[in-house]
């Protein structure tokens, strides 16, 4: 029964593990404040600025007045068909790359988990992640190139691509960028899931075999519930990165052809730094931020859940 009280303690929000005993407050301030002030300067101040900008037509010249325009930027945004289309493209892009990355990554993790070459394979899998996304974009642009590109050549030689090129057709370009994303980031999903698999209780796995489950059934019955947390973390991290990082798009298509790859962050980039519609850009940025913060909340919750998990595990042994 001691177990139950401990569990209750956890859910009540009291530090469960014991090590984090309180440090007197007078010690906390000098430790915490430098970082908090620095971060506030670099994030809250800009955030307030961003809100301010979204209600103004922003003049960049010194002394040039920012003209208060009320909700003009906002109403423009809601009636801007490209804005909504770009959300759609972002969603399409994220969902498809997510499905592929989670599917492939989970499969990889399972295979890695049983592999004798786990370390070597992880090292290899890390390599794409080390590459600056913009360099990865350039590299793949070269691979896709209709004149020099090996991947173009391979697809043509295999007869998989009869007309058009990879980045030149609005049907394919987005999927071509998905492929780059899958190439660079599936390993990340695999690593996170792998760490989840390490937590899969082997005894439960065996119990389910003894119960009569086959490999597939026991995966769904035991492994999946155990790695669910990891999978969620992987998915959320990838979703947020898709919103955060647009380097692949900048290097590969710049949003073309025919806006078919203009995901929202890229549209924001274009409005802000090609057309210098900084006020309008700020409105778009705020909506993106809002969504990211929602995702962020989910991620942090997941992490906290996972940190509490090992405790649960111990308690099963008591």
């Amino acid at each position, binding site marked *: 029964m001691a177990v139950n009280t401990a569990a209750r303690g956890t859910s009540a929000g009291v530090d469960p593990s014991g090590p984090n005993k309180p440090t007197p407050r007078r010690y906390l301030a000098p430790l915490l404040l430098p970082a908090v002030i620095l971060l506030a300067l670099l994030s809250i101040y800009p955030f307030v600025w961003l809100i301010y900008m979204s209600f103004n*037509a*922003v*003049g*960049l*010249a*010194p*002394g*040039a*007045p920012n*003209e208060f325009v009320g909700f003009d930027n906002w109403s423009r945004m809601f009636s801007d068909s490209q804005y909504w289309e770009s959300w759609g493209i972002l969603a399409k892009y994220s969902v498809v790359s997510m499905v592929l990355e989670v599917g492939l990554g989970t499969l990889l993790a399972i295979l890695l988990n049983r592999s004798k070459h786990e370390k070597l394979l992880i090292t290899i899998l890390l390599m794409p992640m080390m590459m600056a996304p913009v360099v990865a974009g350039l590299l793949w642009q070269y691979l*896709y*190139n*209709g*004149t*020099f590109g090996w991947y173009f050549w391979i697809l043509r030689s295999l007869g998989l691509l009869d*007309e*058009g*090129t*990879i*980045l*030149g*057709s*609005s*049907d394919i*370009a987005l999927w071509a960028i998905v492929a780059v994303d899958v190439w660079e980031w599936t390993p990340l999903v695999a690593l996170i899931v792998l760490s989840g698999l390490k937590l899969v209780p082997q005894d439960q796995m065996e119990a389910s075999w003894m119960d009569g489950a086959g490999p597939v059934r026991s995966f769904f019955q035991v492994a999946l519930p155990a790695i669910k947390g990891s999978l969620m973390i992987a998915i959320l991290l990838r979703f947020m990165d898709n919103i955060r990082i647009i380097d692949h798009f900048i290097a590969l298509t*710049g949003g*073309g*052809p*025919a*806006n078919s790859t203009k995901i929202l962050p890229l549209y924001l980039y*274009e409005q802000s*730094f*090609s*057309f*210098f*519609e900084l*006020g309008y850009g700020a409105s778009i940025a705020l909506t993106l931020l809002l969504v990211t913060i929602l995702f962020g909340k989910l991620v942090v919750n997941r992490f906290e859940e996972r940190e509490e998990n090992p405790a649960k595990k111990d308690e099963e042994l008591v």
Partner: protein
Amino acid sequence: MSELYLPPFASRGFSRRSFLGGAAGAALLLAGCSSETGSGNANRTFANDAEKWKQYDGKKLTFITENTPPSSGIKAIVDRGDFKKLTGIDVEILQNDLPVMLQKAELDLRSGGTAYDLVYTQDKPVTSVIADFFEDLRPYLEDDSLPQIEGGYGEEAWYPNYLDVASFAYSDRLIGLPYDAADSVFCYRRDLFEQYSGQFEDEFGYPMEYGPDTTWKNVLEFATFFNQLHAKDAGVPFGVGLHLGQFAWTTQLDIQRILYSHGQWREFDIDDVQGSKEPGPTRWGDEQSVRGLELYKALFDQSTPDALSLGTVEVADAYNAGKIAMVPQFHEFAASFEDPANAGGGGKTAYDICPKGDKEYLVGKGDLVNGTNCGIGGISINAAASEDQKRAAYLFIIWATSLDVQTENLKVAGGAPTRAAVGEVPDIEAAQGTPYGTGDTGRVGPSDYPNALTFPAVNVGMADPNAVLGPKIPKFNQYVTIVANEIQKMCAGDNNPEKTAKAIQTQVDELHGV
């Protein structure tokens, strides 16, 4: 953002010619202006030109420019010390991809920054966007304490039209001098034309020869022919290359050439040289624009299948790889077309003026011309810089656009000179194609100055009535983005030409608040 564009004084239609015509008035005006610039060395007197050049010894200038060969050439010449020896001034030359360059320059200038003293101002993508932030050069032209432009400021020394395009936007302020140029010429595989001319005649009833009267419809037929040929495993894979992908403004130029050829159709009812901050309703959506798009779509269907991903560079790569028979291309690419290492290059290419409009695609009664467009790069001075920096920068401008440096640049990097006299330098004259109009414009063969091969075609293409120089509008980049997107959609089969023209019209008019 609109308050940024309030013109110093409105002056629609004020052109260089009227400005130069009223010479006396101008002199008065200039005298008045020069007295304003009364700081530093402005009122000093110098014993000779050498001293004038040296007056800013020890200063440092920063020049932000595109990463194209002419700028690389200037950088090479600066780096070897030519300008420093003359003036004692150090120049840091920053090269970037044009969008990045524009972004940086625009951010700096709009915010009143002085990170860059000198800015490369390509006429439409850059100048039309940030024209208001450049120094008026008129006072400098008349300033005795500064060395003056070799050969003066006038048509005698420079290629026609270049001055107009590089010098003005929205006002009579003279904001730049032409420094390099990218003019469209028509490049085609002469070897293939000769080889298949007869066969083409059998099928189409006239010989496959390219000349000043060749129309876009002819080009379409040539392309169709080549593609049919390719279906039989002969010739090259594709008939014609287009500049549809990558950068919106090259896509806009690609369609603009064709549209202008038919009755000198323009996008806006504005003056090409001055441009306008309030261009009013666009002409997109009218019948001629629809016909033009139909022609463009037909050409697209006969072009490389990957045309949607090919920008100017990529289409040149494809041409060099021997995949394309014809391509309208900017004349600075001649250097790579003449490189014998390339399958499609190395003396197989002929250069001529862009095709003429075809009466079949002409709506109404306009003229049919050989529509030619360009990207003229000027150099301008950041108006926010200090007086001395601006004067030192002026020294750099007149040096960089001088005959000697342009000639040198052509040798070093295959630059694209803006002074007609460069073409008269004996070596370079010898390297040019045979004079235009002899029926054999395209000179073929290896050359030390491959770009010079295109000069005869450029000379005619960039002159009236063929040259189309506009539109200079503050929202040029937004405008071309709309055009490029809609045309790409049309080519991808999402929209027909008529709907495309209307879609462009709607969005552009909305952009300009019409």
